[in-house]
């Protein structure tokens, strides 16, 4: 265990060591300053702007920015949907995969446009190479860049001095792809190929196994998709079993690299935030709050997986970690780390069966997603999600020090509060109401494998994953049922745009306000007190909303497990 613990500490250290310079790089990039890659990429960037007729210096109002986001995503959605429906007659389809059913195509398109990458299909049998590369991989970049652009716009709204402009969406999006996602993906993909991840355009191979039977082994252009799936917190695997597949994640080294990629850009955003608002301590405070929440969750998962299942221990009279549903090449600790990271970061890729984790670990995964994917969260999305909590924390704390609440000198007033509340409603709506519908409708409930509290966990997990735009699957949930493909699609769109739009509106409202000068009467939003306040706000608001449902799911399961283990 001590070696495993050491590797996790090493992981955290490397993560921060990489994220700090990346954050600095991103801050320069989004401020339009010269970066390391500017000499190489600016001709390409300029050519793209000329092609699109875009003036990158032209700032947009929040409405224009939001309209650009919606237009870009709507076009991406339509294109992907068409591609999936027509893949049977389009080229690059060596396996002869047929067109996807309408409800599944809707679900998949919504999933990839919203950066969820929930997979109600199995990639190797239901997607052509063209769909994988032109459809999913393109959206892996586009949806990640959308989240990053929105976060940058929100930061500008906080940082600007009353100009009322949030920047240019097209420029932010282009820069995110060109300067951040593409170069990083290139490097990561090459390393992954070096570790043995497949990358080929040839079809599946048929081999004769030891038992003499023919076996079809799927392959394809995996490494290129995996790099961006991790970096862009997409999570949609090339293969159905995702990062547990030996072609996706063959070694401990590839596992560590991918674990790093899951959190790299979200963590870097904290530091970029601090630089962009002109006070690095502000970014550090957000990093501290997210980091403490992450480490707390990770510690619970590590402990409960290492402790193992008390019932099995009782029956077999042995002790040991919970290894059910885990790849032996990763073991309990690295699987726990991945699980905590992927649910915290809205990534959704898995290297183990989440259904088989201890109920307590499942509880942590659920909470990570239910609070809205704000523990680092999706690229960009985690930051602006956390800023929603900041708005509420600052509002209450501001009142308690006797001033109109303000954050970074911007007054938080009725408009900001109502928009934040509106955004907050999407989580209970998508998770609680849709889960309740599932258990009411018999056809929907039939898709749930288990009965009892574990079954409820499966339902809650599915809708938390969709609404939180995570995309990871707990398992034990028949996601391909038309009821669920449709409802999940709606949940994903809700969880994405019912937060992006209010958040951009908040940024727009704040951008028009001139910042107030800080005095001894304004409470600082960078000290330990604020970090604690923010954590408590996240835990209390999330806890109050989801505690009753969780009590009937993982909490009941864990308690009965513990009770049953007593002699």
């Amino acid at each position, binding site marked *: 265990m001590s070696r495993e613990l050491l590797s996790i500490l090493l992981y955290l250290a490397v993560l921060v060591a990489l994220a700090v310079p990346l954050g600095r790089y991103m801050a320069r990039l989004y401020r339009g300053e010269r970066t390391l890659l500017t000499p190489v990429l600016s001709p390409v960037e300029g050519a793209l702007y000329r092609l699109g007729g875009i003036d990158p210096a032209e700032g947009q109002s929040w409405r224009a920015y939001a309209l650009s986001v919606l237009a870009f995503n709507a076009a991406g959605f339509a294109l992907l949907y068409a591609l999936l429906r027509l893949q049977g007659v389009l080229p690059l389809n060596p396996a002869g995969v047929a067109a996807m059913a309408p409800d599944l195509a809707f679900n998949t398109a919504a999933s990839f446009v919203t950066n969820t990458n929930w997979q109600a299909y199995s990639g190797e049998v239901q997607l052509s190479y063209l769909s994988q590369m032109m459809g999913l991989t393109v959206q892996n970049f586009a949806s990640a860049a959308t989240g990053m652009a929105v976060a940058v716009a929100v930061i500008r709204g906080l940082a600007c001095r009353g100009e009322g402009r949030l920047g240019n969406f097209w420029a932010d999006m282009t820069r995110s792809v060109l300067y951040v996602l593409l170069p990083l993906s290139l490097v990561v993909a090459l390393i992954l190929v070096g570790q043995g991840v497949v990358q080929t355009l040839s079809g599946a191979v048929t081999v004769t196994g030891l038992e003499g039977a023919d076996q079809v082994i799927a392959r394809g252009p995996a490494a290129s998709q995996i790099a961006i799936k991790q970096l862009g917190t997409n999570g949609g695997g090339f293969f159905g079993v995702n990062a547990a597949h030996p072609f996706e994640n063959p070694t401990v080294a590839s596992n560590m690299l991918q674990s790093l990629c899951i959190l790299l850009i979200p963590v870097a955003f904290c530091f970029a935030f601090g630089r962009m608002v002109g006070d690095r301590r502000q970014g550090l405070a957000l990093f501290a709050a997210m980091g403490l929440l992450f480490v707390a969750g990770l510690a619970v998962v590590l402990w409960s997986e290492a402790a193992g299942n008390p019932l099995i221990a009782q029956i077999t009279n042995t002790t040991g970690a919970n290894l059910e549903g885990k790849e032996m090449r990763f073991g309990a600790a690295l699987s726990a780390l991945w699980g905590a990271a992927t649910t915290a970061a809205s990534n959704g890729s898995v290297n183990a069966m989440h259904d088989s984790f201890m109920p307590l670990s499942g509880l942590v995964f659920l909470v990570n997603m239910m609070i809205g994917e704000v523990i680092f969260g999706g690229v960009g999305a985690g930051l602006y999600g956390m800023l929603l909590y900041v708005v509420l924390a600052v509002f209450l704390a501001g009142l*308690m020090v006797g001033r109109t609440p303000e954050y970074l000198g911007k007054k938080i007033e009725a408009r900001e509060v109502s928009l934040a*509340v509106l955004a907050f409603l999407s989580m209970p709506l998508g998770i609680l109401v849709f889960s309740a519908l599932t258990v009411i409708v018999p056809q929907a409930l039939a898709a749930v494998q288990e009965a009892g509290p574990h079954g409820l966990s499966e339902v809650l997990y599915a809708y938390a994953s969709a609404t939180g735009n995570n995309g990871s699957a707990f398992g034990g949930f028949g996601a391909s049922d038309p009821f669920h493909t449709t409802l999940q699609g709606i949940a994903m769109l809700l969880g994405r745009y019912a937060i992006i739009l209010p958040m951009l509106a908040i940024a727009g409202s704040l951008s028009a306000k001139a910042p*107030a000068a800080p005095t001894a009467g304004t409470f600082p939003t960078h000290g330990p007190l604020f970090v604690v306040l923010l954590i408590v706000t996240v835990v209390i608001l999330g806890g109050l909303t989801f505690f009753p*449902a969780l009590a009937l799911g993982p909490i009941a399961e864990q308690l009965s497990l513990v009770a049953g283990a007593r002699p």
Partner: protein
Amino acid sequence: MSRPETAAPRGLYTTAARQSLAKLSPRLLLRNPVIFVTAVVAALTTLLACRDLAAGTGGGVTIQITLWLWITVLFANFAEALAEGRGKARADSLRATGQETRVKRLPSAEAPHASAEAVSSAELRKGQIVLVEAGDLIPIDGEAVAGVASVNESAITGESAPVIREAGGDRSSVTGGTTVVSDWLVIRVTADPGQSFIDRMIALVEGAERQKTPNEIALSILLTGLTLIFLFVVVTLEPFARYSGTSIPVVFLAALFVTLIPTTIGGLLSAIGIAGMDRLVKANVIAKSGRAVEAAGDVDVLLLDKTGTITFGNRMADAFVPAQGVGEARLAEAAWLASQSDDTPEGKSVVALAARLLGDALPRAEISAHVAFSAQTRLSGVDLEQGTMIRKGATDAILRHTGAEPDPVLAGRIEAIARSGGTPLLVSQDDRILGAIHLKDIIKPGVRERFAELRAMGVRTVMITGDNPLTAAAIAAEAGVDDFMAEATPEAKLQRIRDEQAQGRLVAMCGDGSNDAPALAQADVGVAMNSGTPAAKEAGNLIDLDSDPTKLIEIVMTGKQLLISRGALTTFSIANDAAKYFAILPALFLGAYPGLAALNLMGLSSPESAILSAVIFNALVIVALIPLALRGVRYAPVSASALLRRNLLLYGLGGLVVPFLGIKAIDMIVVALALV
């Protein structure tokens, strides 16, 4: 200044109790979404209880829960009614002064008084001219255009000493409801009936036209949002419970819902707002809008006039500086004698200082003649029986009078006094200069500490004075203000406000003159003195009836206290929910998963008693917090971080812990009384 309590507490409570029933009208309840929702839920459980009774299926717990839900609504209404009631008594006494009277209307300001026609005060309109004479009630707000009179304004200010009102200058404003004590005034009416100062004051203290303030609106939205979220939580709980193999009675769901939604702060929110305004009214400040009061809590910079706010209005004797060979006592004696006939505050201060220095050894010289101060000689004093001339006066006047030169040491010290911002007066006996009196602006006691408090709160103070920069700097240093503006003109003041605002600061100031009006209007919080001109009173958003510029500090404190009370009780209300979950959820789910009994941290005796106890606690906590809501959360001027830490501990952590204890205690009582 204090005002006798106008209503006996007992009467206040019974009125409030009656009012809380009247406030059950849906139209009134709708103004408070959280309490409205509680009432709807209570109505629903009432139907359920009736159904149970009709079916004869017991329903003892249902009836009790229903009862407590209604009590929750009534308690919230009671809090609001109580807060309003305190203002009502004041409003009634004000209304008595605003009654219709006969008035003498003049065709024009220059018309002879005999041409006045008697009309009803209700017929007066803006711009008309009215004559008021000794004994008359001033019918409505106006501006004196002719005459001078002493006016009793106690109806408004509570101050019984009459004040002078005269045409022209900064004391021309008169207020309806006040009485002319002597002489007469010709007034131009500046307000239509029903819009006068008194009418506004009545509306304000009654809370009748109370507009929600910006922060209150924002908070209401947050509370409504939380209510909506909890609606999702509770409505979806029934399907989840059914899936888990148990069924939850609707009345229990209703109980859970009401205990979760922020009824505590929802029930007290309007009471806090009304009580805050009432505190200002008690301090004799009239806010034209609640917005101004909230803005006062946000103020970053206070512009304070030196005279009357930081220093006493006049210079006072601070020290005696004897010439060489003269004892201090001898100088003090001479100064005492020279000031015997000087009735100015300066003269009195010299007498006081000398008396303090000399104790019982006051001089017993026989005064033969008093020499009064004149603009020509610029000195005053006495001639004694023996013909000795004792004089005091400005330096050059005494030098001319005596023809002597001060010794070099004294000359140096005279210069030092002038440099320090003080004024030197010389005292002479015949042709000998005995020494100097150091006159200086005396800083009001406690002012320095006040400014230190303000600094701790993050409020900077800027002293405004017409003095030269040297004098201003000396006084500023002594008073402990953060900055000063010397030789300030109204234009410079206005510019200063704009500059501060451009840097993102909120500015408060007070003023009374017409030339203050632009600055008062520009300032985020402008406090006009009631003694000031109508223009100043129109421009300010608060009016201080006592005309006390230091009141600005009180106003800032009240504004902050108002916000803190809301924030603290909201935090308390939300933190309470944790305990309620641990009380109610195990009770609801015990049938499905007996293991969940582990969540019954309080060890409540039965599911029914647990739910009932939570509902009872939820109702009682509103009543328990009414005094806090009316009084306001204690506010000490410390830094924001310290304040936040304290309030988070008290209301956040307290809000987590208190309900665990409270619900447990109520559960024990419920069981002891065998209510379930």
